[in-house]
């Protein structure tokens, strides 16, 4: 695997782990469950990542068409 790619993937995964860890820490420190608003916020972040993935798929498909 390309080293830069590996580092990029690793950072992305660690960032996501940090996101959920911070969320759980905050909720547990406040002795409460994760709220619906917090779940909405995570769902919104996922919507953004979905949109980015769709763009990447289109770009890759265009690249594959050029190569064919």
């Amino acid at each position, binding site marked *: *695997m*390309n*080293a830069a*790619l*590996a*580092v*990029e*993937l*690793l950072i*992305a*995964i*660690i960032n*996501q*782990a940090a*996101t*959920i*860890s911070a*969320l*759980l*820490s905050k*909720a*547990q420190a406040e002795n409460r*469950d*994760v*709220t619906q608003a*917090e*779940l909405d916020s*995570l*769902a919104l*972040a*996922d919507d953004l*990542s*979905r949109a*980015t*993935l*769709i763009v*990447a*798929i*289109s*770009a*890759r*498909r265009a*690249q*594959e068409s050029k190569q064919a």
Partner: protein
Amino acid sequence: MTKEVQMPIVRHTWSILAAVCVAATLTVGIPQFAGCAAGTSGMGSVLLPQTLNERIAAGYVLVTTLRETATTLLNAGKLTADDGANVLQITDVARDGLNVARMLSATDLTSAEAKLAATNTVLVALQQYLTQRGAQ
């Protein structure tokens, strides 16, 4: 010569594996991943999701992580457009599953737990697939 080429690859793959273990532990609270995460990452203790809402939250984060991983692999030319489309489709199914579990949690806890468990199975399988593709 061979060792000089292979060692960095082993290190990178190991790091990704460690991170995947951590993510899987955080997300679904799978006990067998906890030791793997602690053993490979050296990141100390991890905070496991306990309640249904916490596990749904972790599920959302894992779906996002998988989409971002697929985006990175697509941009690096490690994933074909068709593979990317498959990841999109599977993550959409998982996201829908999480939404359903969230809705059911208010009325039918058993069904919500079952839906979440089924969704997590799909997510872990997809995570392993993407890790393999990234390691190639």
